[in-house]
């Protein structure tokens, strides 16, 4: 059972990483409009728009 001392910290690291990702997603506005994004996969040739879409919001 000693392995727990090793596995639990790993679980916690994953947890922290997930939290960071969620924070980033929320802050970059990915949850602001939930209707539109269902259709984004149908859109091609967004080359001009890519910088916008990556979620950073800024060019």
């Amino acid at each position, binding site marked *: *059972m000693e392995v*727990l*001392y090793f596995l*639990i910290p790993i*679980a*916690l690291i994953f*947890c922290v990483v*997930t*939290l960071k990702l*969620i*924070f980033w997603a*929320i*802050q970059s506005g990915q*949850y*602001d*409009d*939930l*209707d*539109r994004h*269902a*259709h984004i996969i*149908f*859109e091609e040739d967004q080359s*001009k*728009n890519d*910088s*916008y*879409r990556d979620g950073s919001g*800024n*060019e």
Partner: protein
Amino acid sequence: MAISSLIPSPSINCDQPTECFHCGEKLDVSLTFQTVIGGKKRSMCCPGCLAVAEMIATHGMEAFYDRRTHYAPPPDLELLDSKFAGYDDPTIRESLINEVFEDSERIKLLITGMTCAACSWLIEKQVLQLSDVRAALVQLGDASLTVDICPNAPLSNVMRAVASLGYEVQPFTTSERNTILFEENKRLLTQLSVAGLGMMQVGMFAIALHAGDIQGMDSNYVQLMRWVSLPIAMFVVSFSARDFFISAWRHLRVGALVMDLPIAVAIATATLASIYATFTSSGTVYFDSVVMVTFFLLIARYFEQRNRFKNSQLLQQTHDNLPLLASRIILDEIHLVPTQQIVVNDRLRIFHGDIIPVDGELLSGETEVDESIFTGESLPRTVRVGELLFAGTCNLSKSVDIRVTNPVGLTRFDALQSAVASAETKKPRIAKMADAIASYFVAIVLLLSLTSGLIWWWIDASNSFWIALSVLVVSCPCALGLATPTVLTSAASRLQYMGGLIRSENAMEELSRIDYAIFDKTGTLTDGDFECVEIRPTSNFSANDCYLYACALQKYSRHPISSAFRHDSGTSKNQPSNEMVDFIGNIAQSDDANCPVYVTGMGLTFKDNGIEYRLGQSQFIEECVGDVTLPDSSMHWIVLSRGKNILCFFGVRDRLRPNARQMISYFKNNNIKTMILTGDSSQQARLVAQSLNVHSAEFGLSPEDKLGIVMDLQQRGHQVLMVGDGANDGPVLLHSTVGVAVADATDIARVKADIVFTNSDLLCIEKTHRLAIKARGKILQNFGWAISYNFFAIPMAALGYVQPWAAALGMSLSSLVVVLNSMRLNHVNLENRDI
């Protein structure tokens, strides 16, 4: 903006198209416009649709037609280019910039007319083709387009590009309040996700601990589990549950016991006890319960908040309807200026079809204005020289000049809005039963746990603290606190699927108790359009011929009554006789100089080879043919004359909305009295009341009269549901027990109603009432469960039969039962089972 239905592939019925390929309007058989898109010939209803469709096709964006789920809005080609030029003015442009980057500036525009996700794709593509635009993003949620545009590049190009697709566009102005709500929403989502993740982590360790309690577990590992749970739970409590503590404290300071107080006390006590247990390696830890409770409470709060945010965006759009620019006339020249700069006595030009920006007096000529936002009636008012025009109303017939009497901020429209705002805060609120019970409950529980702790001190001192805590935890009033909000949240989300938004927390509860249902007529039971129900030809032309001739004439009228003469609304669709084809052809071939002319407030006149045709009110026809005797007074008659002869009488009446009848009979079947209150005093109003067979109806009422009737009913102890639109219903919607605004409701009505529908189906009101009754049932079930749970659990805990871990589990499960029970509301059947 939920997508409700897919349009059947337009290419299928290509041989015999009945609807415009672009906007979906019914096609006029005699008059279509065709072009080739996607290799097939497509038919359009008007030059506007044709132009837009061709533009889309030539720019390689045909894919729009494959992707769309709703038809595009019919474009208005009369949009004036000059309207946009004003936004290029450096000072105006400056005020619109949201953010400045190295090589671009970010500007947000409001777009109206978007129907589905394909629209947003189309707009983005179109705007990105402009060389000055660096990036463009359309958000359906708030109907906005954000563009990054080169500094000094004209904004009007972007606006024109959007307008050329048939959408209306104007700058997006954000209110302070909206920005705050937006941030609030993000913060809550962050808190919720932290609590959710925390719940999973702590839950994982808790399962190990609970299993250990049963099977036995090495104390090393028990302590390990506790020590990892501790920081996670602490973080969740301090980060996610912060609002409960703040709110509890804020209310406690002014002496109010709110639901947040017991929650805060329970969370705090359980956390502190668990920390104590962890440090001393004794007792039990409750980290899992703490985190779970936080998560469940936050999720209910988040959905409620989300709803409120959506509603506030609806309000936002109200204000955006007023134009930001006006055409000021100085020395016979038109200058576009921001409306803020307009002062009293300025001379303004109001083009036809424009929304009037400020109050003013008509200087010359006469025109008709659509004042439905004030009166709710769809018939326009004729305005003559010297009379007043009001901001927010729409100039229908021709361009006129006005002298400004009230500038921005002092108009009748502003007065109405501020009256609404102040009345809103005064609305009496039903005392919150759950909070009231819970505040007594928490006092009793605190007392009980203290007493049992003291008693056990005498019997067995080593157990007393844990038993006192068991009592406090097992009886956590969360189930009680969740009973109402979770049901209301489920009901709200269910309603949202039907196109409804709840603005007042009490609406659902109140709706379940109504015993009077009152309806406005125009725009609520009828859709504001008219239908031709009877045709009585008085010459040798057939009814069909006369109707088709009237249809051809009405194209030159903007009067709402002309809606009775459309091919799709009529009874006959046969081809006209040969003679009539020629006559109709003469109308189509007439040029600007001799085409049919609309005489304000009267009707249409057309001179064909020296013979005068007239279509309109009987007084108008009398000018030509002498006395006119109408067939009877059962409906409104429109007369068609040729020279000195009357050709035909058309019986016109308000068109009922689909399902109006069914809705009324639903309320009647449920022993709810139905009533119509309308400002309309005409014969047509009585006909509508008669055909719907309501219990009672009152006609020709002013808004004050309506309010008087509703308040009188309320004083006699009735719970009144008011369904209406239009600002004249505003006060009634506000003061009635429950106010419901239906689709096409002028925006001001939305401000005041408890429930707003963006869906035009009247059945929704019936369904909402059913939902409200079910929701009330669910609330009672939840209370029943929470109370009986506590009734059994507290004595058990006080007697020492409940281990603290079981207490925590029991409490979490009891909350879970409440949440799951409430969620069942999303699946109950709301369809009609009475008939």
